[in-house]
């Protein structure tokens, strides 16, 4: 490997992760202390709720399951490798991961299209939202691409990515684990750190204050008592 390539790898896999994590912690805390009321997903469900369902639900369930998988591989690599000893178990795990990855992709594409095609939604979309959509799209498409073209990630994440990430945590970065990996894997890793670094500047902050019961509570009914003529008779938001 040339000096230049090594230098770029150092920037991407040592400097960027630390800068991203520092930004994430500092800006998240600063924003929470200074402007706590901006901690919101800035929901647009009220403006359009049909396509919203087909974007929001698959995306969130997809991304949450896939993220949980990454965290499990980070925390329990040895156990995961033992689980994958039986080919059938490996295939079932990988297929499940792909299903949820695809759900996240389908949901995300649906949300992006909704932002583009719905005039009401486009009005409330900020430039940072577009940046976020691009980054999330790159992240999810690279993730699904890796799942399909560079299997079996559940095993090699545990074998190569986990030690790399722990080397960062222990402040003894060892990029040899990642320097030889393919472009798509590197893109996925780098983009993940960019997303973490940008998180406190975007509506993604809602993940830090997520009302977890939303995942299993009954659907919320928001009733608008509006006459079709447009005259507002009474507006009331229910609890539920």
């Amino acid at each position, binding site marked *: 490997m040339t000096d230049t390539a090594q230098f770029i790898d150092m920037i991407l896999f040592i400097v960027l992760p630390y800068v991203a994590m520092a930004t994430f912690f500092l800006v998240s805390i600063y924003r929470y202390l200074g402007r706590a009321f901006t901690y919101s997903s800035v929901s647009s469900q009220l403006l359009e709720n049909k396509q919203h369902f087909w974007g929001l639900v698959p995306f969130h369930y997809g991304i949450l399951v896939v993220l949980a998988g990454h965290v499990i591989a980070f925390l329990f690599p040895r156990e995961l490798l033992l689980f994958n000893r039986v080919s059938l178990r490996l295939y079932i795990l990988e297929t499940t991961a*792909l299903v949820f990855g695809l759900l996240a992709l389908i949901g995300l594409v649906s949300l992006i299209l909704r932002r583009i095609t719905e005039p009401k939604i486009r009005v409330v979309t900020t430039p940072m939202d577009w940046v976020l959509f691009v980054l999330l799209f790159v992240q999810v498409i690279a993730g699904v691409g890796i799942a*399909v073209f560079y299997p079996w990630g559940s095993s*090699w994440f*545990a*074998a190569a990515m986990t030690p790399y990430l722990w080397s960062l945590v222990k402040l003894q970065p060892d990029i*040899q684990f990642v320097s030889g990996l393919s472009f798509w894997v590197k893109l996925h890793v780098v983009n993940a750190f960019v997303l973490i670094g940008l998180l406190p500047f975007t509506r993604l902050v809602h993940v830090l204050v997520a009302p977890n019961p939303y995942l299993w509570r009954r659907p919320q009914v928001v009733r608008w008592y509006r006459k079709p003529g447009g005259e507002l008779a009474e507006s009331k938001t229910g609890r539920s």
Partner: protein
Amino acid sequence: MRRTGWTALPVALLIAGASFAQDPVAYFRQNCVSCHTIGGGRLTGPDLKNVTQRRERAWLVRFITNPKAVINSGDPTALKLKDEARGVVMPIPPGINRELANALLDMIEKESALEESQFKGMTIPTAPFTAQDIERGRALFLGREPLANGGPSCVGCHTTVGLGGLAGGKLGPDLTRVFERLQGRQGLAAWMQAPATPTMRSVFRNQPLQQDEILPLVAYFEDRAKAPAVTPAGPASFNFFLIGLLGSVVVLVLFDIIWKRRLRSVRRRQVMDAAKEVLHGD
């Protein structure tokens, strides 16, 4: 030059890591034995026994610290070495510098003087492997039998022909023909003892393969190399993708059923009812 200087320093510090003041024996074991023996015959690279008598030390130091540069300079000896290695160019050893190269050459000199060097390489039987050897190699490859030192099994990153199911991983190369690529039993075994690529080296550095695991794996790869033709990796990936797509459609249908009483059914009905009221009521 200045640029190279300020990039090279942190690179050497951070990437080479522990190579400073490194014991040449440990360094050789970790970085050189995948391609070289001392008195055990040629692997991918030449046998290094008495190499300090065959070539000038200055040339050797120059070559070790940057093999590619010496080859590119058109040096006839370097070009001949490249030909003998079937075109494989020796990578720059991680964290190498003139001092370390000299220390390595001193060590090689000492080892060459011994009757049997510790770097003679593994003794690989020449007799044909048995069906049990091959079967055990397959079990190790697939992970059915875990590796004793805790290393990950091959299938996570590699595939070969005849694995069935959704086949093996594709992060690393297809190993069906690896037996030929690494020039037979000796080369393959040496490679597995100290893998030369950055990812493999990192992953297996602290959990190396054991000799009694390497032999069955060599048997398995030798057997795979006899397979008539390499099946393309395409169908397994495509099938996997299709299964995933089908699964996600099923989940989408499930979502629709689970949330069938979602907001839409409440509000839209109200809107429709109100519309009817307006149409018929007025």
